[in-house]
């Protein structure tokens, strides 16, 4: 009877140590619903008890119901026949169970039947579900569609859509990508037009749409005829009715349970969500940033599963007269995996906290505006949270998805030849992990997204603060290491800036982002190690490794390694 919440000591530790006091108070509007709804919390402790209980239920369903079905879901996959998509049996059963447990509307406001949870808790649930079956996360995680509607739609639209999202009757999809608009969404062509009464309709094609067979779709469409850029795009909601023809679903390497659809919209009736022309600039950016956080949660869930498999196998497999777990080379690999997972889980939940801050501060700012009582202090807090999140969202997505690939790779390596076979689940995890650093923006795009802030040293205040802080015992040595990484980063950055060579800077961005993020993660780990003896191991290995890598990165940049790209035509024959 594994419970994927209570059996995960590190996730439990995060749950217990994260200080959500301010967030929960805002999320619960100072606990003002307690008299109106029996499930609304009375205070912070009450809310945390709620979250714990619901995560326990999630962990129970994930461990005992979803995980045992993951292999058959992968084998069977979502099926496309006669224009219809059918989920694998295990997917249907799991969705049914999650709906009955009322877990499909975790972040939908309570008045629409949702649980009204902060993002951080929802992301913990997402990690737990992803560990059980990565492909289930692609449907579970689409609760973000409901959240986006809750955030930007008008009252009538919210009433129309949200209650059915909350019960799990509706699943969603975000229809953004087109054959010629992938990473470059400004190029979206799908046409939205109005009839004489002002009703909207959609016409055109979308591709690679996760859960495109969902009941409600949020579509990025060109409402301004003749426009070419992002300012001509709006976001519309429509039902997945018969006017949408599903042309095919993709045959993918992994996440087989999640159907990836090509959709043809044939004058599909739709409703404008929010304001015209802000489709990409405001709403889709909001949705995509959330989706990136979701994929980070998926990445960590897959990593956790891969680590568990490796550990179990290493303890059971005997060679040379002992379990391979006892071979230093193997235990060293396992430690690397564990340190990676714990370090990035720390980064991830820190990013989630900033996401919650940003969203709830923003709501407060808007409330103050409506009440004509400006709140400059909250305004500043919102701006700061937004600034930090602008760095942390792409950095987490980049680091966690890459790490998910590395950890599943190493886990398969520990399994040896057996791991390459279908009998063990590691080959599935390995395939499932592969998409995480591709979709919702490739790692290369995440680096571009983070680079601006990194070059502007956006987290400098935090680094300065940490450098002034007193750490216990040997941790002070690690602080010195982090200071050294910072110097290496600054030297590298100066070098790159002085070159004034845009392509060199683009290529070096990866090294710069790597160095910069390792300082941030390093200090988060030192903070944990300061309170928890065991975490010293995690901090030590992470920081020493980061320092070695930073030295190499700095040398790479200064050695002009990348200047041969101008000769690419001669090299790439």
């Amino acid at each position: 009877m594994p419970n994927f919440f209570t059996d995960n000591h590190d996730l439990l530790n995060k749950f217990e140590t994260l200080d959500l006091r301010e967030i929960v108070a805002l999320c619960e509007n100072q606990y003002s619903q307690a008299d109106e709804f029996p499930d609304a919390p009375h205070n912070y402790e009450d809310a945390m008890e709620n979250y714990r209980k619901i995560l326990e239920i999630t962990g129970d369903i994930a461990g005992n119901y979803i995980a045992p079905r993951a292999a058959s879901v992968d084998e069977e996959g979502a099926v496309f026949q006669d224009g219809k998509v059918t989920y694998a049996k295990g997917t249907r059963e799991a969705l049914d169970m999650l709906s009955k447990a009322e877990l499909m509307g975790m972040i939908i406001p309570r008045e629409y039947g949702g649980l009204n949870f902060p993002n951080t808790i929802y992301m913990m649930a997402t990690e737990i579900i992803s560990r059980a079956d990565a492909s289930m996360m692609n449907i579970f995680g689409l609760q973000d569609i409901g959240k986006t509607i809750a955030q930007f739609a008008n009252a009538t639209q919210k009433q129309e859509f949200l209650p059915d999202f909350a019960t799990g009757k509706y699943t969603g999809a975000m229809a953004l990508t087109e054959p010629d608009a992938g990473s470059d969404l400004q190029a979206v062509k799908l046409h939205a037009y109005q009839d004489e009464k002002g009703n909207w309709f959609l016409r055109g094609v979308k591709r690679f749409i996760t859960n495109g067979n969902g009941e409600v779709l949020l579509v990025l469409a060109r409402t301004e005829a003749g426009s070419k850029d992002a300012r001509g795009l709006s976001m519309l909601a429509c039902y997945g009715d018969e006017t949408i023809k599903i042309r095919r679903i993709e045959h993918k390497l992994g996440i087989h349970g999640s159907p990836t659809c090509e959709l043809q919209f044939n004058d599909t009736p739709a409703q404008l969500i929010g304001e015209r022309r802000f489709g990409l600039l405001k709403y889709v950016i909001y949705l995509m940033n959330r989706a990136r956080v979701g994929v980070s949660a998926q990445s960590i869930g897959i990593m956790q599963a891969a680590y568990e498999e490796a550990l179990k196998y290493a303890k059971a497999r005997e060679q040379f007269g002992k379990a391979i777990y006892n071979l230093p080379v193997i235990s060293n690999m396992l430690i690397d995996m564990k340190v990676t997972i714990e370090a990035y889980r720390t980064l991830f939940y820190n990013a989630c906290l900033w996401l919650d801050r940003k969203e709830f501060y923003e709501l407060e700012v808007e409330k103050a505006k409506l009440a004509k009582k400006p709140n400059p202090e909250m305004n500043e807090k919102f701006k700061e949270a937004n600034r930090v999140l602008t760095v942390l969202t792409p950095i987490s997505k980049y680091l966690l998805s890459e790490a998910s690939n590395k950890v599943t790779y190493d886990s398969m390596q520990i399994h040896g030849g057996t791991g390459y076979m279908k009998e063990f689940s590691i080959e599935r995890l390995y395939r499932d992990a592969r998409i995480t650093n591709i979709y919702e923006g490739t790692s290369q795009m995440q680096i571009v997204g983070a680079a601006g802030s990194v070059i502007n040293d956006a987290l400098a205040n935090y680094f300065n603060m940490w450098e002034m802080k007193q750490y216990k015992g040997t941790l002070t040595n690690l602080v010195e290491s982090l200071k050294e990484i910072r110097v290496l980063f600054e030297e590298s950055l100066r070098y790159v800036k002085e070159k004034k060579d845009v392509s060199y800077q683009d290529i070096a961005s990866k090294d710069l982002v790597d160095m910069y993020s390792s300082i941030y993660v390093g200090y988060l780990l030192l903070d944990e190690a300061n309170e928890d003896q065991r975490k010293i191991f995690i901090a030590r290995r992470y920081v020493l490794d980061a320092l070695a890598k930073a030295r190499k990165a700095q040398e790479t940049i200064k050695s002009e390694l990348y200047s041969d790209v101008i000769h690419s035509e001669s090299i790439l024959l």
Partner: protein
Amino acid sequence: MSYNSIVLVKQVPDTANISGQVMKDDGTVNRAKLPAIFNFEDRVALEFALQIKDRFGGKVTAITMGPPRASDILRECLYMGADDAYLISDRKFAGADTLATSYVLSEAIKKIGNYDLIFGGRQAIDGDTAQVGPQTAEKLHIPQITYAQEIISLENGKVRIRRKIEGGYEILESPLPALITVIKDAADPRPFKARRVMAYKNAKTLMELEKLTESNSLLYIDQLVNEYTTKNLYIRTLTMDELQLDAARCGVHGSPTKVHKVESVVLSSSGHQAIPPTKEGMSKLIDELMHDHILG
């Protein structure tokens, strides 16, 4: 037409997760060393009742007889969707066998009243007797159908049930009210519902409220019961006095069953014999099996 159901549930030791020190030297179970869980077949019984509520409407009431800590499973009944829950608890109920238990349960059911159906699991995993359901039906003078797999229909004051029998199934019809015991694969119990968990996590029985008053002299039990009742968080608690029971029929005094001795039986073979695949061989085998009362 709606139907009201009462569901008999029991908290049992988790016999699937037995560790050391579970058996005392005298052969009785050391319950403190065993995690307590919701008897699975009773969860299936609750699922049956909830499905009837989903289809026809009506009320589902869960009741358990047990020690104060059995309130855990009553909260779990509320999490799954039960409208009401009763704890039937009294020190004088301790040591009850199936006869005493079914006496107390039947009296409690009479007091609660207003039911069309009573559901219970086929048996509990601790005693494995499968007697409490049938005995309760007998004491209430209502029909019973055991080993139910499926409710085929419920109409015109009659329930039609498919029940498992050796080698197959049979379909029985019974007038209402009736008592039905269900087997474990009859239905998948629904999960706890998130919003109900949050709403009912602080639901408390009389004993739990009494505990609160012990640690805080400013609290009075009647006040607390009222307060919890108003908030819909009081798990109604029935004691022996409240049920006006005959003490001689309750607990250890009302239980003719006495455990003489518990021993661990290990079956082992002491040898084997070859039987030739001939007519004579086969008839010799059959004779021997009949002689040992394995056949016939």
